[in-house]
């Protein structure tokens, strides 16, 4: 097997990754009839369509193509740093409050840049903290925990 078009190959794979489980899961819902569709009817159709499309894209990328086997330049470091800074923000917000999670988000995400400097990132974090407190907490009055829950006693 020779992959002619790496991009299409993986795109097909991604579609299959969503399409097949969608079909399988829809079988578990009520399918119903064409006149009286159950909750599984439309998702099953979509899952099936996505699976077929995924397969066609996948097969085409193997059998023929313009010979674009060029490697995909996927930047793992940047992706991991940016995404994990966002996820950590979400995980830390409730238990540790906005102050701490903001610092973590800014510091970790800043590391993804080629021009990363610790001093700049820390300074940036503190400035942003002040901006966020003024705009979102003071003016817009967003319901967002500011302090760690073990200090305020709320959960």
């Amino acid at each position, binding site marked *: 097997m020779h992959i002619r078009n790496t991009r299409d190959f993986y*795109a097909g794979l991604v579609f299959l990754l969503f399409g097949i489980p969608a079909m399988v899961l829809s079988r578990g819902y009520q399918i119903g009839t064409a006149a009286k*569709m159950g909750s599984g009817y439309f998702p099953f159709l979509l899952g099936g369509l996505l699976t077929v499309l995924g397969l066609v*894209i996948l097969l085409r990328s193997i059998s023929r193509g313009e010979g674009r086997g060029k490697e995909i330049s996927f930047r793992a470091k940047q*992706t991991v740093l940016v*995404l994990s800074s*966002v996820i950590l923000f979400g995980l830390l917000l409730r238990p540790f409050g906005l102050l701490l999670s903001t610092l973590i*988000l800014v510091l970790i995400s800043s590391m*993804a*840049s080629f021009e990363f400097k610790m001093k700049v990132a820390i300074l940036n974090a503190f400035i942003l903290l002040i*901006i966020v407190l003024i705009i979102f907490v003071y003016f817009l009055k967003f319901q967002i925990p500011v302090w760690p829950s073990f200090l305020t006693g709320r959960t």
Partner: protein
Amino acid sequence: MELLSNLALGFQTVISPQNLLYCFLGTLIGTLIGVLPGIGPVQTIAILLPTTFALPPVTALIMLAGIYYGAQYGGSTTSILVNVPGEASSVVTCLDGYQMALKGRAGAALTISALASFVAGCFATFLLALLAVPLSELALKFGPAEYFSLMVFGLIGSIVFASGSLIKAVGVIVLGLLLGVVGTDITSGSQRFSFGISELADGIGFVPLAMGLFGISEIIKSLEQREKKKMLSKISGFWMTKKELKASAPAVVRGTLTGSLLGILPGGGAILASFISYMLEKKISRDPESFGKGNIRGVASPESANNAAAQTSFVPLLTLGIPPNVVIAMMAGAMIIHGIQPGPRVIISNPELFWGVIVSMWVGNLMLLILNLPLIGIWVKLLSVPYRVLYPAILLFCCIGIYSVNNNTFDIGLTAFFGLLGYLFAKLECEPAPLILGFVLGPMMEENLRRGMLLSRGDPTVFFTRPLSLAFLLMAFAMLIIVAVPAIRRRRKDAFGQEGEEFPKK
């Protein structure tokens, strides 16, 4: 005249101090964020959507519309001053705008772009007001079969003008539709694809999806390269010379007309309008060689076209309930969050909202004109903020915004997931824009399919026997055929080729 009384109602709505204030804030903040390179209207609306939740629906929509054309205008400023498109629809503005800036005519380029946008915006708003009533009356006659076929037409339209592989674009749409059905099924009340996660019972949030696909993935993409030193050109002489004014006036008219038309078509919108009008202008010019070297028409025409298209693309949303492009899909999402189902009924059930938003576009455009010229100095300052400081701030505002939608942290994780998906899509050359359209239309499509089939007692031919429904399906089919024809495919590649990754890094 009914039109006049309608417009008067709109003015009454807009003129309230609160609405004026938020219209102003929307255009101002929209421009502010739109100026930042890489952040266009979609991202701007996604980031600022949560800030409108506390407002009444009319005010919120007025502000969001302001954010939209503000961001659009801000993008042009970036294109002209630093040769980096602030957003996709101002890519063409880079070509001649930056060249003008290099020649010391940056001021004139900014002025014509503001004026052209204003003229186009006025005309398009008028057109929108004119078309709204008849179109929504027509739409009220639609049955479920017509609606279903119309949505098929709209979705196909959105991929015809998308760049890249057609079949992958169809896949992206289907995935969007599929994501749209996650959550509680309205008809039966049963859960679908929610995996026992209570946060998914209400479906996937629109904000996390949009912010992940467009905001977060864009940041990761931008971090792939080192920062370039941005060259800011000096700004002097805001007013245009008589010669420049004379040259650009007809270009503005042509751009406005092209843009107004393309904005209404599904899949059209601001990006396509700016490209087409630029090509048109170059084609009919007596001196095509001067384009790309600082011809003022090359700024005037696309700038008027993208603004006209931005306004007229509200027509299908407000009258038919079908968003013709991504930005409008964002607006549809915002309307639904505010409890208004976009469609022909809006004009009857919420006339003050409908006409208020339309008139606010005109007022907002006027504000843009007055606001932007004196504030250019501030935009220039903003542009000199390095990206390494900027993107953590964007991430932070995104996260806080997402959290505040439902006060839950699950959505933040979901955003990260869609951020990854968006980045993957970029790497695999799948355009993410149709996904949002599918996502917004998914539940509506299912409902109309179900109702249509129920009425026809399970006979699928109902979609082909009702004349209007058949017409929509035939048009959708025709569009697919047209795109599949190799010659047009190549041309499509040409039009979008400049938009590719290489472009901004010159």
